[in-house]
């Protein structure tokens, strides 16, 4: 018997990658392609969904070729995706009706304010576990319906389809206009504000509240089951998992027990805590979301602390300020100085997410003096990620009543040693990285492999988890307290920056 493998497609915010995993959960090959970020106006972030689909067609064959395997050796495909980003496309032609509105996009801020005053707004959070914010798909979809002539009527007639990225990819992988399957999974659906968290179906009241025709919505399925067979890219291979990227990372970190938590450092950073089969509602600015659902088993829920801007602050530093030529160089630059020199950067580029949820906040750099060099700025960039982590850990501890004893981390920024040490220093618990840093992809692969029997059970997956690195807190308590206060004062300076009338003019 020739060896078989599981392929995962991670459709992320900045790139699409394909990773081939073997039976021990080891990475065999990886291929990646970045796509264009479009910023047509301040606060707007768009992707071309067709470009993303083309990239899938490029990276998957490349990863297979690199691994030296053929489609016949692929046991299943799993998909992990950037969440909330909203695509609406024509069912007949497969062409998107508008650029995809990305999760960081804040164009819906006035819409969200109007909706917040509408009847039914208070009940919304009970159904869907989320605060009304620009972040989620529901408002973005409503915006598209409002601003694309004739779209609402076409949606009612079922001529156009809505989906987040996994829906878009699965539809295209299974034939597109020619019989493509239109479905989503519980984790992605739990980010729309349209799903009933307990019943795991579209909630009629939420659909009515946002004014969204049911005919355009995908069918909600579990995160780990055989949805269908691919006819494009990897013809004949079963598509057996879909999860939002953060939930995929929770799965890849084998956080299968209530109380298990992980933080993934990517474009943004996301701390998720497994709360078992009951949704827990937060009183400290965290989200209630579906962690995963395996086939017909009960769904597992999670509390989530979402931070919008972490890795993308480094990208901004690289691409917009051009102070470094590659992302890892931020560490080199930051090490040219011993501390932040009194400078703090609060990257409220899309407002602030957890635990503040301030759409009107915008970024600040404070504490500037003639003393500050680009090295201090680089430090401040990395420290922003550390302090934002601390804020969501505090909220998580308060909501769950548990004290986090170690923080499991993953994602590209875990390669940054200075940052990981700083996170350990400010969160004041050890930070641990597992052997596979690519846990988003690994989680999608695990869920797909589980669905087709490639891996037998969760216990088997858990035995694949090994510690690869551990950073222990070294910061002096007094320094930590002082720096924390400075950070909090810097955060307060971001509040209320966007005036209501400016938002109205932008509309």
């Amino acid at each position, binding site marked *: 018997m020739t060896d078989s493998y599981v392929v995962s497609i991670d459709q992320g915010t900045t790139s699409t990658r394909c990773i081939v995993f073997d039976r021990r959960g*080891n*990475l065999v090959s990886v291929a990646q392609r970045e796509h264009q970020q479009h910023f047509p106006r301040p606060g707007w972030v768009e992707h071309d969904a067709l470009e993303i689909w083309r990239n899938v067609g490029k990276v998957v064959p490349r990863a297979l070729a690199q691994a030296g395997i053929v489609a016949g050796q692929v046991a299943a495909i799993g998909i992990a995706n950037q969440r909330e980003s909203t695509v609406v496309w024509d069912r007949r032609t497969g062409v998107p009706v508008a650029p995809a509105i990305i999760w960081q996009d804040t164009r819906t801020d006035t819409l969200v304010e109007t909706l917040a005053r509408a009847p039914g707004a208070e009940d919304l959070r009970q159904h869907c576990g989320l605060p009304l914010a620009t972040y989620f798909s529901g408002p973005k979809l409503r915006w598209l319906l409002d601003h694309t002539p004739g779209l609402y009527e076409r949606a009612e007639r079922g001529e156009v389809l809505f989906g987040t990225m996994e829906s878009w990819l699965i539809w295209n992988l299974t034939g597109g206009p020619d019989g493509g399957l239109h479905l989503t999974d519980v984790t992605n659906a739990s980010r729309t504000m349209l799903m009933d968290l307990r019943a795991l179906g579209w909630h009629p009241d939420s659909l009515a509240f946002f004014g969204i025709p049911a005919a355009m919505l995908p069918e909600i399925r579990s995160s780990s089951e055989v949805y269908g067979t691919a006819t494009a890219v990897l013809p004949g291979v079963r598509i057996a998992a879909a999860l939002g990227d953060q939930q995929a990372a929770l799965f890849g970190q084998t956080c299968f027990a209530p109380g298990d938590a992980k933080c993934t450092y990517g474009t943004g950073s996301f701390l998720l805590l497994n709360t078992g089969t009951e949704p827990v509602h937060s009183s400290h600015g965290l989200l209630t979301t579906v962690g995963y659902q395996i086939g017909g088993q009960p769904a597992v829920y999670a509390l989530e602390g979402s931070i919008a801007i972490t890795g993308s602050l480094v990208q901004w530093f690289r691409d917009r300020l051009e102070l470094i030529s590659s992302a890892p160089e931020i560490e080199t630059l930051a090490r040219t100085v011993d501390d932040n020199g009194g400078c703090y950067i609060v990257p409220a580029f899309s407002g602030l997410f957890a635990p503040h949820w301030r759409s009107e906040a915008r970024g600040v750099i404070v504490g500037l003096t003639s003393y500050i060099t680009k090295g201090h700025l680089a430090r401040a960039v990395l420290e922003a990620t550390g302090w934002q982590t601390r804020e969501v850990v505090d909220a998580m501890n308060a909501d769950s009543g548990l004290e986090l004893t170690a923080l499991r981390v993953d994602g590209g920024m875990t390669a940054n*040693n200075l940052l990981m040490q700083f996170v350990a220093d400010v969160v004041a618990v050890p930070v641990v990285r597992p052997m596979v840093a690519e846990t988003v992809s690994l989680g999608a692969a695990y869920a797909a492999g589980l669905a087709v029997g490639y891996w037998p059970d969760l216990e088997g997956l858990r035995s694949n988890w090994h510690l*690869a690195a551990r950073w222990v807190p070294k910061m002096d308590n007094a320094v930590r307290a002082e720096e924390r206060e400075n950070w909090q004062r810097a955060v307060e300076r971001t509040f209320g920056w966007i005036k209501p009338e400016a938002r109205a003019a932008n509309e």
Partner: protein
Amino acid sequence: MPGQVQSIARAAAILRLLASSSGRLGIGEIARSLDLAKGTAHGIVRTLQDVGFVEQDKTSGKYQLGAALLHLGTSYLDVNELRSRSINWADPLAARSGEAVRIGTLLDGKVLVVHHVFRPDDTLQTLDVGSLLPPHATALGKVLLAYDVGAANAVMQGEPEPYTRRTLVTARTLSRALTAIRDNGWAAEIEEMTLGEAGIAAPIRGYGGLVVGAIGLSGPVDRVCDAQRHPRPTLVAYVRDAARAVSRDLGAARW
């Protein structure tokens, strides 16, 4: 005397042209100035761009000298970038071999540990990124010395410290070992630094084959070596595969 390599002479001319020009130049301008076919000029400029000697302006599409030229004398690959690009291959090496993995580069005559993956047995281990190792007594260091004549001479002219009685401390034994490493493409260390410990390492190559670092595993002698005290061939193969995978990534288009 061997003949002149035409494309290198032309590449040098293009660099001179860009250096003396007051602004950026387009492919057409470069081709006309040097009386080259546009396709020929484009091929050379693209290669120079790949190695970082030439940069293209995003908006105008015109070319200028690249930042890498200014840093020719210093290390051309940032160590944090090396870690970032090798992390995906160091993890599977540790998982497959069952041993701790380190990546090192030379810094002022010592081996700087730029990346460290724990032995995958979930025991308590300490991250030693940033620590310095003696180059003559470690597999990582010997690999780096084998491909850096200057550093090797400096070590041999000094007085290499004997950590154990197996440490190579004479110029003759060290020089012979480095030749063997170049022939084999990998290095081993067997109780040369610490009694009971062994290691295997191989070179990580960047553009044009330049060695930019070394990746290796280390562990107890009885696990790393067979009964004859030779490094186990499967482990050597894992190390070399990982080194090749990182090298391939570094040689590919810039991230």
